[in-house]
């Protein structure tokens, strides 16, 4: 049985029917991880810890205490702190860090315990590679080397959740967690031919998620299908008293609409999306979008139309400005969040220094990589007296316009459709010399983080070099279940999400 091609929705059925045990599944993926080390998708794997969890999951199953996802293996982005495994955020400054606690996401998905009786019972396979502190769009900013794209090893896997994306695409995990501050779930999902969703800000607890930009960071699932993402998101999200921005009203079943028509009574079997209005922002199809991506996303729009949806043009006039706004606000928040790394309580400490100040300075300089240092410098600058109003406050004011523009667009449509990124996965090294060129690649994903909206990525084609193309669906606040419904209906009519990279046997 090739379990790495099996959606977790089917894996759950096989576990419940005792066709396979969690221990067998876990060993299967541990073997594939061992054989697939060249992708550099994982930063820490500990077979005995995973198998220990699998054994507990099997006990839960045999004693009738299993939940929906009990026994299914999952890989965690190394931004989530975990007991047992190292938690590094792909930074040298945390290279040996052992967390004393589990992130809420890890606990929610993990084996139930006294502290966390409601754990889903999933098995942790290990920690996946990422851009250092989630700062990057290609996974080339990892202190532990780039992740290779399973569709073509000469290309990047995307970032910052590149390890999670490559792990699922290469069959080294059936599903994975990711985080998205400016596109870090959606873009690597698109680059690796996966489905991923960033929910509404506040749906998933940030407790134990190593902070980059706190008003933008949000966690979500990355998997093979919309249905799998709905299953994992339902288990990930919860109200968490340890996160002051956690929403009170989460905890819903995000898969409840998957197999329903968009409007009961208004749709037929072959027009399940009748009544759905899909907005196409003209700014998302303007100059800068590659012809291959434009063609695939336009074809996807036609597919949705064939399923009964109505296409409407909408406008998001400040799309281009989302880049400078993001690259002021995110570094500002990062410079503050990363001030905690001082070599005193945890993390790297320089071996030689003159005094306390020198120790801070040398530890931080040695511990942080080039992009992280750059963003700390930008953030410090824009928060300086004299520049604060012109940069930081101006960016926050435009952030309000961007959020309001989305509300205007949602008067005319139910979901927004566009590309995830201007082009497919680029070659390793192609954009790493020029930070601005890399930032421009984030143009279609940043604005939803600024507004706090849910958005997802689902495969919609390939370019001439057989590299995956993703389309983005953006919904209004709290509409995750509806986005997943549209993606699921699209996936019933297409097979892009089922394609496998030829190098992944």
């Amino acid at each position, binding site marked *: 049985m090739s379990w790495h091609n099996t959606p977790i929705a089917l894996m759950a059925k096989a576990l419940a029917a005792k066709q396979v045990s969690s221990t067998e599944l876990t060993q299967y993926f541990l073997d594939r991880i061992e054989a697939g080390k060249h992708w550099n998708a994982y930063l820490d794997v500990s077979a005995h810890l995973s198998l220990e969890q699998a054994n507990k999951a099997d006990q839960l199953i045999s004693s009738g205490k299993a939940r929906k996802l009990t026994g299914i293996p999952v890989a965690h982005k190394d931004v989530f702190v975990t007991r047992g495994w190292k938690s590094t955020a792909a930074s040298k400054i945390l290279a040996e860090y052992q967390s004393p606690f589990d992130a809420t996401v890890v606990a929610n998905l993990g084996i139930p315990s006294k502290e966390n009786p409601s754990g889903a019972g999933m098995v942790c396979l290990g920690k996946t590679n990422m851009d250092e502190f989630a700062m990057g769009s290609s996974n080339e900013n990892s202190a532990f080397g780039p992740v290779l794209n399973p569709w073509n090893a000469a290309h990047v896997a995307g970032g910052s959740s590149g390890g999670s994306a490559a792990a699922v695409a290469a069959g080294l995990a059936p599903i994975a967690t990711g985080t998205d501050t400016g596109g870090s779930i959606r873009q690597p999902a698109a680059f690796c031919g996966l489905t991923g969703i960033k929910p509404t800000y506040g749906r998933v607890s940030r407790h134990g998620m190593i902070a980059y930009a706190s008003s933008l960071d949000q966690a979500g699932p990355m998997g093979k299908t919309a249905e799998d993402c709905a299953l994992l998101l339902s288990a990930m999200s919860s109200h968490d008293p340890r996160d002051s921005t956690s929403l009170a009203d989460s905890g819903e079943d995000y898969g409840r609409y998957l197999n329903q028509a968009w409007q009961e009574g208004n749709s037929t079997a072959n027009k399940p999306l009748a009544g759905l209005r899909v907005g196409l922002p003209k700014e998302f199809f303007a100059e800068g979008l590659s012809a291959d991506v434009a063609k695939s996303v336009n074809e996807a729009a036609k597919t949705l139309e064939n399923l009964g949806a109505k296409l409407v043009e909408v406008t998001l006039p400040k799309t281009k400005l989302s880049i400078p706004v993001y690259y002021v606000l995110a570094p500002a928040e990062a410079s503050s969040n990363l001030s905690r790394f*001082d070599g005193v309580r945890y993390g790297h400490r320089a071996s030689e220094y003159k005094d306390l100040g020198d120790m801070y300075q040398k530890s931080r300089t040695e511990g942080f990589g080039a992009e992280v240092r750059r963003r700390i*410098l930008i953030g410090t600058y824009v928060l300086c007296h004299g520049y604060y109003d012109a940069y930081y406050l101006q960016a926050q004011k435009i952030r309000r316009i961007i959020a309001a523009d989305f509300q205007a667009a949602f008067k005319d449509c139910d979901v927004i459709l566009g590309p995830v990124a201007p082009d497919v996965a680029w070659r390793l090294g192609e954009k790493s010399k020029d930070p601005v060129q890399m930032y421009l690649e984030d143009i279609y994903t940043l604005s939803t983080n600024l507004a706090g909206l849910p958005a997802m990525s689902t495969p919609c084609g390939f370019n001439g070099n057989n590299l995956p193309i993703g389309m983005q669906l953006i919904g209004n606040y709290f509409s995750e279940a509806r986005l997943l419904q549209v993606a699921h209906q699209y996936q019933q009519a297409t097979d892009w999400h089922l394609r496998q990279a030829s190098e992944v046997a």
Partner: protein
Amino acid sequence: MNLDDVQRIAHLSRLELNQAEAEAVLPQLQAIFSLVEEMQAVDTSGLEPLAHPILFLRDLAQPLRADQVTESDHRAENMQSAPAQQDGYFLVPKVIE
């Protein structure tokens, strides 16, 4: 932005840059800030800054909890990643002579 600015913000950030590193990072920061300058053309008069997406939806009421001890003693686990420690305390270079 000039080299003095770079060294000033590096110091505020508690990062060390030698002359060559400062010279290398300056044009990168200048390129980023020329992108950032595009924001200045937007008329934002009368607009309140949006610090947080939740504020766009509703007032963010600070959740309060009962003032009770909920944590047990995790001192040993919390100290396990300390770069230097003594007698259960974090060890730093002498601050006061």
